[in-house]
């Protein structure tokens, strides 16, 4: 079973990782318009487009959630 879906994982995870990283960086505090999150881990570079391609990064995100004044309120690993 695993060997059936493993070839598709890099493509699916690449799409999800790009969506997650872009979404997190676009979120801002409503008053000050400052970022809500700061991604600390490496973000994916190349976006995969075909089954069989391999991602240049893993599929986790380490980030700080930021207060309005940009101090870190918490650290999270997704």
């Amino acid at each position, binding site marked *: 079973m695993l060997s059936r879906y*493993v070839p598709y*994982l890099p493509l699916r*995870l690449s799409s999800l990782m790009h969506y997650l990283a872009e979404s997190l960086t676009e979120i801002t505090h409503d008053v000050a318009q400052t970022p809500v999150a700061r991604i600390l881990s*490496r973000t994916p570079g190349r976006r995969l487009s075909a089954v069989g391609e391999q991602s240049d*990064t*893993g599929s986790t995100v*380490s980030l700080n959630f930021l207060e309005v004044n940009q101090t870190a309120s918490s650290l999270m*690993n997704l």
Partner: protein
Amino acid sequence: MAHRSRSPLADSPCLFALTGSSNVTNSKNPLSLVTYASDLGYYTLLDAAALAPSSKISLRTISADAMAVSFYKMFGFPTGVGCLVAKKSFLRQLKRPWFAGGTVDVVQVPGDGFTAAQEIHEQFEVPFLHHLSKRDLLNYPPCRTEQLILQVLLRLRED
């Protein structure tokens, strides 16, 4: 690493371990480092715990002596189950200072003599699961069957 002697094994055996993919930094390290270290004379271990579940790995192209894989990152619970894929020539360099069930063929009792299992990989088998995962294991489908059988057996009474 490159500043060491070209043949570190001549002095003492050295192991180079590379994390294939880090779940903290989200970086994938170049696997060519394994080949580089191997060419310098190091024994090499590829930690593929986070790499194997989502990447294609070919041990034909990576000259690692051993590779660690975590099964729960592939299949889910129970945690603590994995495997070490190793070359037989590498295992022969290792000395396990203790033995346990399954890793020996004969044990002398009383006494301290024993005969290690004939197959080299059996000498390194770990007979116990991660003790912290036993509670998770009880919810694992095959174990539920065992639980059910156990419950039925415990309810049995002589009439």
